[in-house]
């Protein structure tokens, strides 16, 4: 492997849900929305984590505790250090989408990279036309970026849903694809970002097809086991494609023929 980790300081860490924390590092990295870093803790190990912000002065990452590295990352305190290498991969080609309407569809932790896209859009608002957000979470208490999403309601067309409501939930209930279909958003001059669990992307694609979207209007983001991020370790291969380098973001027609995509 090639790139060595840099040492970075955790400048802020905030709890988002029972299992998710937002970590901020006050250092800017040139990157595209949708790219990721390899984040590590000495003695523990390394994990690929998406960038969920877009700012030249800092990066933020939303981390879900699911095991060895992520549990320990989420137990860090302000001032602790981490190893960071990257950014890696191919993100969203935002330049190519100029003058288009944008539809961002995110499920669960798939909302995190899309928040980076939104921050990019906010900084380049005149480049894009209508922006629609469709976010779905399993339960209201699993909702990420609550305050941000509140503020998006003033700027964009926002649709939220949960699978399992609690007593306080007054919004939509059910799968995100239903909301999407009901919204009747137009497919004219429109780019779709679809980011979430495989099952959600699969159903999302079916719905989009029904709504008349072409394959080259839809961008997906894939998760794989990624050990190196440098097209060397072989773990992330989807048929012959290295997801860590050629992805994790793909236009649907680029991967449609790959039998190992789901």
């Amino acid at each position, binding site marked *: *492997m*090639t790139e060595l980790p840099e040492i970075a300081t955790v400048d802020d860490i905030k709890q988002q849900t029972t299992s998710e924390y937002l970590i901020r590092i006050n250092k800017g990295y040139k990157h595209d929305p949708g790219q990721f870093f390899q984040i*590590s803790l000495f003695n523990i190990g*390394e994990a690929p984590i998406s960038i969920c912000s877009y700012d030249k002065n800092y990066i933020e990452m939303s981390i879900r505790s*699911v095991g060895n590295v992520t549990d320990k990352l989420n137990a860090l305190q302000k001032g602790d250090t981490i190893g960071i290498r990257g950014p890696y991969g191919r993100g969203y080609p935002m330049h190519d989408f100029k003058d288009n309407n944008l539809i961002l569809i995110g499920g669960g932790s798939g909302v995190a990279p899309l928040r980076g896209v939104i921050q990019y859009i906010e900084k380049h608002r005149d480049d894009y036309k209508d922006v629609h957000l469709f976010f779905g979470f399993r339960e209201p208490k699993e909702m990420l970026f609550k305050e941000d999403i509140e503020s998006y309601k003033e700027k964009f067309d926002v649709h939220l849903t949960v699978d399992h409501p609690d007593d306080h939930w007054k919004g939509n209930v059910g799968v995100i694809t239903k909301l999407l279909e009901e919204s009747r958003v137009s497919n004219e001059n429109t780019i779709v970002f679809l980011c979430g669990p495989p099952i959600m992307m699969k159903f999302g694609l079916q719905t989009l097809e029904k709504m008349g979207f072409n394959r080259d209007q839809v961008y997906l983001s894939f998760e794989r086991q990624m050990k190196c991020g*440098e*097209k060397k370790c072989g773990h992330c*291969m989807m048929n012959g494609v290295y997801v860590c380098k050629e992805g994790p973001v793909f236009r649907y027609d680029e991967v449609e023929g790959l039998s*190992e995509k789901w």
Partner: protein
Amino acid sequence: MRARLLSKHEFHRFLEKLKSQGTLVAPVKEDIVRFKEITDVSAITTEGHPLFPLKKYFSPQKRKIFTYENNNIEEVLPEKQYIMFGARLCDINALLRLDKLFLGDISDRYYQRARANNLIIGLHCEIPPNEMCFCESMGLSDSGYDLLFCDAGENFHIKVGSERGNALVQDLPESDFQPEPIKTEKKLHNTEIAAFFENDAWKKEVEKCLSCGACTTLCPTCLCFDVYDDPDVEMNKGARITEWDSCQYEDFTKVAGGHVFRQAREQRFRHRIFHKIQYYKDQFGEFMCTGCGRCIEGCPTKIDFVEILNGMKQ
């Protein structure tokens, strides 16, 4: 550059000269033939094909990428300069294949360093050393070596592949010798395999696979790895390690949540074969497999991918 002639009486003296210039690695007959670092040149054999390939010298099975102590990182790079004697054309080509992966757009510094001053003295196969060899089908290129030794009874004819190689033999008598292309009994007939992805034979023929990973360990062009930390007991220091991994293991593609992308063993087996015969070629225009036969020879259940592919019909 003209070929040269070396009398076998002079062979050990020549090997001594090589040994004086770096760390000499060559085949030695033990329980099996192995590549080893040489202390005594008389132990070197020109018979047989080492079961374990050369890749370990360029990216060891367990390799420290860097050591850390508190927050200080120190990269670990190779110290030795290897001179390889006795590599067959399949193994030399295997290094050329790995070069494309490890010296590509993001070069691996360790591998790069180990390869940079590496001297390769090949050994031509007059007859294939192993009945599992099928390199004739794999389009090997006659390159990648500094010198190529060809056994001709009393003498070796030495084909020269580089200026550095030439410098080692320029005092020897010249020869007009040209080695014959290698002919192998075993052949891979179906080299266009895209249409074989969905084929019942995978499940049927690969049923007895143990997912043991012997094939990937033995393959000279398999170099996938895991990355993990190895802490010292005192926890203030340790090393980040890469260790050879295998796409034949179920957890190779496992992600958080437990999903495995290649759940069935025949999917994992097929992935390896497709990488060797199809995907790498799509990327670089040549096969990743060099036809060395090791993955067949070393498979505990004798699964033969060449026969499996040869038996497939469109």
